[in-house]
């Protein structure tokens, strides 16, 4: 990627997507294999509610390619906000997020949207499937947004639904699926465009213990088989055994990192 950017032309990244430049400024630079794929540097997020609530305070987090990270902390400690900042869903009040060398601060809203299409996959606590679409259509949606061919979409959808054990329920509406099934479909959707990084916000929070465990195992399998990087926010410490690193948060700060190097 860095070599291509060095040519001085906007970086093209698959399917005609381009987010290497914003209004002539280069936003991606200096990324080398082996560098952290995702970096949060001194991230601060302040919400203008009342006197102002600081949800994230000067958090720095480097995520290495292929890593499986759990972010753990009590409710309201800022872990979901941190995930939003890392995924480009929200903008930090201070600090910078860099994904594969691309600085979010230099991307506009549409630039971030294009980045989320191809490089970041999201899994939410409440699944967030579109109720008007079937399970297969939900999985296919991100691929349609980047303009893959019908044939390729069909192939990938089958592959992903098969991988999450939902192939037989492909034509069911989300309303006809259980919570665990919906979350598996949501996981398949997050992986549809083969993102480098998958961010999961309390993916087990709305599931029973058994289904929650299955979802985490599913993530771990993808992480192992496809070398996709996972950052999973949860309040359940029992999943720590699956993680390469566990990041503990409290009151908007990272208070401890277990395993690897923070």
């Amino acid at each position: 990627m860095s070599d291509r950017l060095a040519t001085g032309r906007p970086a093209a990244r698959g399917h005609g997507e381009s987010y290497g430049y914003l209004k002539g400024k280069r936003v991606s630079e200096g990324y080398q294999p082996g560098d952290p794929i995702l970096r949060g540097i001194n991230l601060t997020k302040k919400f203008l509610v009342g006197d102002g609530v600081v949800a994230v305070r000067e958090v720095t987090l480097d995520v290495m390619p292929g890593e499986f990270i759990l972010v753990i902390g009590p409710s309201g400690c800022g872990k979901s906000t941190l995930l939003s900042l890392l995924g480009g869903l929200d903008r930090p009040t201070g600090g910078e997020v860099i994904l594969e060398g691309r600085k979010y601060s230099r991307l506009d809203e549409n630039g971030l949207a294009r980045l989320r299409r191809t490089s970041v996959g999201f899994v939410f606590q409440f699944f967030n499937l579109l109720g008007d679409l079937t399970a297969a259509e939900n999985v296919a949606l991100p691929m349609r947004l980047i303009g893959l061919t019908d044939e390729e979409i069909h192939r990938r959808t089958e592959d992903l639904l098969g991988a999450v054990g939902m192939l037989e329920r492909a034509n069911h509406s989300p309303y006809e699926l259980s919570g665990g099934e919906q979350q598996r479909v949501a996981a398949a959707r997050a992986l549809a465009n083969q993102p480098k990084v998958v961010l999961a916000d309390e993916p087990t929070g709305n599931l029973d213990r058994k289904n929650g465990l299955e979802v985490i195992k599913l993530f771990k399998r993808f992480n192992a088989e496809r070398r996709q990087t996972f950052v999973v926010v949860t309040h359940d410490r029992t999943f720590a055994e699956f993680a390469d690193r566990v990041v503990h948060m409290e009151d908007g700060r990272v208070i401890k990192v277990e395993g690897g190097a923070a």
Partner: protein
Amino acid sequence: MIIFRLALKNVLKNANRSLLAILGMAIAAAIMTGSISMRTGYVNPAFLDYRRFMQADVVIYPKKLHVDPGAVRQRATEEWETVKYQPTFGSDLLSLEPRLADEGFLAPPGGDPDIDLAALRQALAGRANIAGVHPLFTIPAMLSAQGEGDAVPRFYRVPVRGEDVLAAKSWGGGPPIAGGRALVPVDEGSPHQSPQRFALVDARSKAHPQIPVGSQMKLFFPAVRREVAGRPVYDWSDLRAFTFTVVGHYQIPTGSSPLRTEEGLPVVDGQEGRSVIVPTYWDVPDILVPSQALAGVYRELGGTAQTRADQVGISLNSMYLAKQTAAELQQAFPNFGVYTVPNLVRLAGEGVRAIQTDSGDIRYERGRDQQMVLPADLSRTFIVLSFAIAGLLVATNMFILTAQRRQEIGILRAIGASSREVFTLILSEVIGLAVIGSLAGFLLIQLGVTFLLFFSKVSLAEAGLSTLAATAEVVGLSVLVAVLFGLLPAWEAARSTTAEVLRHE
């Protein structure tokens, strides 16, 4: 594509919630459809009132797409009458037959030729919509006739009009020629020897004594002293005699009217106790002769080619441009009365009244009753207002719907939909609502209009074209209004960020 599919699903899913917007758009479309129907004149009433159309100089009427000369000739063999057929002009007047002719279409007031045909043709040049130009000529003449109580024949001034009169086969036939008057025979007529020099006389005219059928009628035409810009200057000191055979009497029915006394009271049937309804007629002094014969007379009088006409019929391929064409012609010829067929609806109230005189005779006079119609400006205002209200309903509805669907929009943004795609999604839904609403309103009215079309002898092709054009106009305007009013909610939805949405879960 997926965005449009999502939009369609949303429209269908939320149809009940969107009912108000759809209803508003439907009402607006219905009002517009009704207005278009009246404006373009393809509704039945327009065809019923051609006979009111007596004073126009330039008449604009639709060209129908089917022409069946055989059918008219067949009718002509059964009884004598004027028909509208002009092979030299390729006239489509025939296509308006028999109904328009039967109802008095194109009856000029007489007088000197006044319409400059060259200028008219120039004004019409380049207009693809013009199907044909059909001039009608008149030459003033003196009729020598002896009325009751006259010791010797006297002269009566009469206009002689060239009409395309088709005589019955039993009378030896005559050249098929175009004209525009509803003629109904009042006698059996008589055979005549000269197919070129025969005439029809208004049976009800009080302007001259009646000439018996079969008798020779002497007409004295003034010589043409000179022509000024195509307009003849007649020399009334140099009258030339021409003899025509009267082959029949005609009368021009204009419908029916309640019979009233001189004081304006209705005449009541003594036994039944109901108002007496009597047929009404125009009485005109016009002597009708074949137009070819009249052209021959004009040349013998010293004239060359008539370049001005009393009245001109202009047929159009499509009546959708009739209003515009009429307005442009009216501007080009401010001294002429330019009318489109739809104006007949406005003129419908100006019928003929039947009045019973003290002696018991029936006298006819023009009425002044006006039919209540919607003025064009008011109609336009209604359309604009109704669409404005419909647009506001759509906008309000979309604001509510997008507020309810913040989560869906947030999800789309989270998985990478750009603001443009969200904008397209909402706008597509707005357009979907507009199309559904406008089609519903349009169909509601258009079904009735189309039903009337079948009874007004409009060809299926013409009716189809009219309907298609009206559909495009109504749905097009609806979509335009919806897009305008949908821009704001679409923009609001597009600029919402994912974090805003997910934070409020």
